[in-house]
């Protein structure tokens, strides 16, 4: 027998398909992966430390920079924790607007997921289509909050500004377009035999494994556990809307793709209900000029696009948080990468970390 040995392939930090500056050390046996070790920290900015030296209000724009393709969800999570800490009651209209924005951003983020998965599998055309449609959502955000990426729209106590009537009209117009462009992705991606064969049965994770690796969000729902904090915790006004939680069966790449694909429809459903029932009233609660939450600590979580986004804030009664810890879903989900890649091919590793949908801004915090 000839002697063989494995070799190490460093994917990244400068690699076309690591979604930013992730480095994955693949230990390869020919084309088969023996181990996949994610190495991160290339985008570490110390946001937890930065938040300790900012007041609560000033901290909100920093959360934009965490998961920069779904900033609204981050704003939402952070503001909810501070409100819980300080005991601020948010007006109903503000809650509705928040839900609308968070769900729009979920759609935008899932569109990016579909696009990046497509381009990682070599279908660059599919990516361009998803980015074309995401642009409409960004235009909506631009209209309502004046930014296309770092929104800083959801504030402590409400939202920064009320939605305009033309926003509502455009939002409805967008919702009408959702089934059309999703059908187009169905035709060019989901229906494509090459695409399905690349994803089906690859990188399976069972519910037990997903739980063991602490995975959340679409990754665990793909395994078949309907663990959606919008239903489980029922925070904000989510219990008032009817929507389904899509779950997969096997927990392979295809299920992860399908769960997100169907979640777009569910999000659209929530937005439509919220727009229909948008109550009149204030968009911002009365919050004191200088916010001093009482001494204490709160851990609160929201269902971000990528999973359970938790903020743990310890307050010492001053204007600045004593300690902020952010439980970033992508960071924790990355633990599953090794198990997902083991025994697969190089081509599957790309699909696997694309299907976890990690975002380096959030992984490295």
């Amino acid at each position: 027998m000839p002697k063989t040995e494995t070799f190490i392939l460093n994917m990244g930090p400068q690699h076309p398909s690591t979604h930013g500056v992730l480095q994955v050390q693949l230990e390869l046996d020919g084309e088969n992966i023996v181990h996949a070790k994610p190495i991160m920290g290339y985008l570490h900015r110390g946001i937890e430390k930065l938040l300790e030296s900012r007041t609560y209000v000033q901290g909100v724009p920093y959360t934009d920079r965490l998961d920069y393709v779904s900033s609204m969800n981050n704003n939402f999570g952070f503001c909810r924790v501070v409100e819980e800490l300080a005991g601020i009651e948010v007006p109903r209209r503000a809650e509705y607007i928040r839900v609308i924005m968070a769900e729009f951003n979920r759609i935008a983020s899932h569109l990016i997921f579909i696009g990046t998965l497509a381009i990682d599998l070599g279908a660059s055309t599919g990516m361009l289509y998803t980015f074309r449609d995401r642009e409409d959502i960004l235009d909506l955000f631009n209209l309502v909050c004046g930014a296309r990426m770092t929104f800083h729209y959801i504030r402590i106590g409400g939202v920064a500004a009320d939605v305009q009537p033309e926003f509502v009209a455009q939002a409805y117009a967008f919702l009408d377009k959702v089934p059309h462009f999703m059908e187009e992705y169905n035709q060019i991606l989901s229906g494509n035999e090459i695409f399905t064969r690349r994803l089906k049965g690859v990188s399976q994770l069972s519910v037990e494994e997903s739980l063991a690796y602490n995975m959340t969000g679409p990754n665990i729902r793909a395994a078949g556990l309907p663990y959606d904090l919008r239903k489980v915790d029922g925070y904000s006004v989510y219990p008032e809307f009817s929507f389904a939680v899509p779950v997969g069966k096997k927990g392979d790449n295809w299920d992860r793709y399908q769960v997100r694909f169907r979640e777009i429809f569910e999000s659209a459903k929530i937005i439509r209900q919220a727009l229909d029932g948008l109550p009149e009233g204030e968009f911002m609660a009365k919050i004191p000029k200088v916010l001093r939450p009482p001494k204490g600590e709160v851990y609160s979580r929201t269902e971000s696009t990528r999973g359970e986004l938790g903020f743990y804030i310890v307050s010492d009664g001053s204007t600045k948080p004593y300690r902020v810890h952010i439980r970033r879903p992508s960071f924790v989900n990355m633990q599953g990468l090794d198990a997902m890649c083991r025994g697969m091919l190089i081509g599957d590793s790309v699909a696997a970390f694309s299907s976890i949908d990690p975002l380096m801004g959030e992984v490295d915090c």
Partner: protein
Amino acid sequence: MFGKGLITGMRVTWKHFWGKKVTFCYPEEKLPMTERFRGGHLALNATKCIGCKLCSLNCPNRALELTVTVDENKKRHMQQYLHIMGRCLYCNLCVESCPTQALSWDKEYAISSWYKEDMVHDSMSDQTSAAVSEVKPHE
């Protein structure tokens, strides 16, 4: 199966091959800026400014460097208002905190520059500086 999906996909690209394109030829055509757009330089209306410095207090990243002088009537006047764009998060907190609505964005978003020094913008430079220069510093 058997390539039906492939044909469907090819039909989609064929349709788009002849269809309308969505490219925006940027420098020739520009996206319309919305009313609430935050970006570009900060523009200070010096006649409205009361020199309270609330904007720089609210700034999360100390992107505003202000020089305020107080005249003989104990009235505060803004002498210099520097917007350091390299630090700015474009979070809009300064604009919102202004009690007299003296601040606004000029929406000139093409602000990339070759040198770091160019990223400091004097927000009072585009004013008719008459209102500013009349004031003598209090001795």
